[in-house]
């Protein structure tokens, strides 16, 4: 019984949150890696682009609520995804046309493009703050819990409760759906193959008749879908605040690089590596040990490896270690 209690404790406080957070990071990291692989620059506007898509979802959710549309037990925000994605793609293509395409055609070095993306970052930040303001917003409605701790305790008779929030399940399910469609698209369709070819060797791809404009267009469309959905899932699970999204760029970058930048499989797994490391290293294991160890051995301290203040620092330290020993990331694999 104690052993089961310990497992449930871990599941409730570490594994489920890590899985959720990891999915959100994974979507963002795939967005970064896609831009890096095909368009060949580190996009510093990542966090703000995710925030931009989420902003539309928040505004539309408020609008839908005001005219009385809802999605039953599911959050209304899920209904707004298609519209938000559309707006996001429109914004990205506009930015690409007026800003990035010039440097792409000129074949500027990646560093210059990264600097330009800093400019885009500032502009996007300004637009977001002017439209919706910098404050914290919650836009989750519908059923909040699938399983409550008390219900679980009654059901099983264990000491520890297991809480499953609906956002956790939604995040994981949506991530699985989006990611599998994306991998299917990249591997099985002709357009996806042409994208991989373009990313592997631009010259050869152009020689074999692949239309670069189409590849860029498709890349921005997929990027828009990933960024918006990742942003909305994060916002539903926690809350929507532009500055937090801006800061989330760092763990997302860390996930993309740890996984091997330019490699979507790596990015997907990198998100989970970062999330699990952050949560497992900062969790206080005192209660866990009190269940599995005999009473005489029970720890007196919190058994916390690092204080939660260093949450971000952990992912960055992992990144630094990975960069030191395997600059190409943990999962090299196939390049997109």
């Amino acid at each position, binding site marked *: 019984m104690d052993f089961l209690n310990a497992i449930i404790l871990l599941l409730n406080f570490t594994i489920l949150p890590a899985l959720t957070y990891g999915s959100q990071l994974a979507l963002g990291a795939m967005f970064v890696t896609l831009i890096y692989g095909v368009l060949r620059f*580190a996009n510093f506007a990542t966090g703000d682009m995710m925030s931009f898509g989420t902003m539309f979802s928040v505004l539309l959710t408020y609008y839908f609520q005001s005219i009385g549309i809802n999605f039953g037990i599911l959050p209304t925000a899920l209904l707004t995804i298609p519209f938000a994605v559309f707006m996001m793609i429109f914004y990205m293509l506009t930015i690409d046309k007026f800003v990035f395409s010039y440097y792409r055609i000129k074949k500027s070095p990646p560093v210059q493009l990264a600097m330009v993306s*800093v400019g885009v970052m500032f502009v996007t*930040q*300004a637009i977001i703050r002017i439209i919706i303001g*910098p404050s914290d917003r919650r836009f989750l409605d519908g059923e909040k819990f699938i399983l409550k701790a008390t219900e679980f305790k009654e059901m099983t008779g264990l000491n520890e409760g297991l809480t499953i929030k609906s956002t956790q399940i939604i995040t994981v399910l949506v991530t699985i759906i989006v990611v599998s469609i994306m991998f299917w698209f990249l591997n099985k369709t002709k357009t996806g193959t042409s994208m991989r070819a373009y990313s592997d060797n631009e010259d050869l791809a152009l020689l074999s008749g692949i239309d670069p404009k189409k590849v860029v267009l498709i890349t921005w469309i997929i990027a828009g879908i990933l960024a918006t959905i990742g942003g909305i899932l994060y916002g539903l699970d926690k809350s929507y605040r532009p500055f937090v999204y801006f800061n989330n760029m760092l763990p997302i970058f860390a996930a993309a690089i740890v996984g091997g930048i330019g490699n979507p499989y790596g990015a997907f797994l990198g998100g989970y590596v970062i999330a699990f490391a952050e949560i497992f290293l900062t969790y206080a294991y005192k209660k866990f040990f009190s269940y599995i160890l005999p009473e005489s051995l029970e720890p007196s301290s919190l058994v916390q490896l690092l204080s939660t*203040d260093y949450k971000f620092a952990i992912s960055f330290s992992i*990144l630094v270690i990975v960069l030191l020993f395997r600059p190409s990331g943990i999962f090299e694999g196939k390049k997109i």
Partner: protein
Amino acid sequence: MRRYSNVIAAYSIMLFLIILVGVFQSWSIALSILNYCLISAVMTIGANIQWGYAGLINFGIMGYTALGGLAVVLVSVAPVPEAWSAGGLSLIFCLLIICLITLLIKYLIKNKNIENKTFIISSVIISGIIILRFISAPAIESIESVDPAKTGFLGGLGLPVLLSWIVGGLFAAGVAFVVGKIALGLRADYLAIATLLIAEIIVSIIKHEDWLARGVKNVIGLKRPAPYEIDLQNSEWFINLVEKFNSTKLNMITSISERKDQLSQLVIDASSIYVKLCFSGLFLIVVVALLILTQRALYSPWGRKMRAIRDNEISASAMGKNVVKEHLLIFILGSAIVGLAGAMMVTNDGLFTPGSYRPMRYTFVIWVMVIVGGTGNNFGAILGGFAVWFLWVQAAPMSLFLINFFTANLPETNEIKIHLINSAPYFRFLIIGIGLLIIMRYRPQGILPEKIVKH
């Protein structure tokens, strides 16, 4: 002289703008903008050395700035003897252990006859961390519980504050040495991200280690290299000086009590301006000294070597230049200058607030300064620091003015107008962003482009 005509023109416009602020807003605001412009200029000189001379991207600027600020606290604040006696010894012991672990790892890496090297090294590190936690945890707890509302940290050395500027540079240089050893082998955009993340780590350590510099509880009332306003207001010579300066204005007032009130008001205003002027003078000395040094370095054989490495690393190394060593050197030099700027900034503010170092935001502002001003040109970098900081500060009032101008026809209760007026502070991001995009597109070399002097 003609060679420098555009430099002189650009600087006079900048000076004119600051004087305009002085005339229309107040001289105190103008001087504080000028001081921050000078500090930004020092930072951009540092970033420009790395990016303009050697093509290294360092997005870790805020980390080094925070280290410079930390140096001010550690050097100038008076020591807290109770805290030292509570846990100082065990912390020194911890420091010794860290040195020992580093030496041990260095020995292990150098020694070639050991099998399972990675395993041994990682086990040394992990056991070292566990031992450190065991020794330091009680010491830190007892230090932080010494009068936590006022101190709760070890304090500094109680030395003059100007010394801390040098120490700030040294701190930053030391950390830059370690970071450079780790990260400099990376490709340009990886280096950018790695340095950004390392800066975030540095700032989060300074923020959360309360025994070091009180963390987010802030250290206030730091020493100053300039006199205090309150002392000035009470000193005879200063009041006489103000009276002399404003004698015509004061003589117009006939009643004695009114004259006295007026005089005391003028003295209060003048004292804040006087203090800011002292800071401006100090900062100006630093900027000019750095400018002369960097300018001489740029046109020396060493500067030519750096440019050769920047423009073509492979051919430079084929000519026998040690690219790795030069990159490390320039990374350290640039970071040290940024650390100096950080110390100057904290001295100017008189308080150390680790919570305000946001690597994500202000780093990019400094980079915009370097790129807008002109990469590889020191005059350009300084100009960029001035121009962008000026915009950053004055963007909100300017955009408020523009909003009011364009929506003048709308009634006061119009929702769009109210919303726009409330979001006026965010227009600075828009202005900076669009400015950067325009410069990158139409004048990628910056306002004052790099000049290569042919010999």
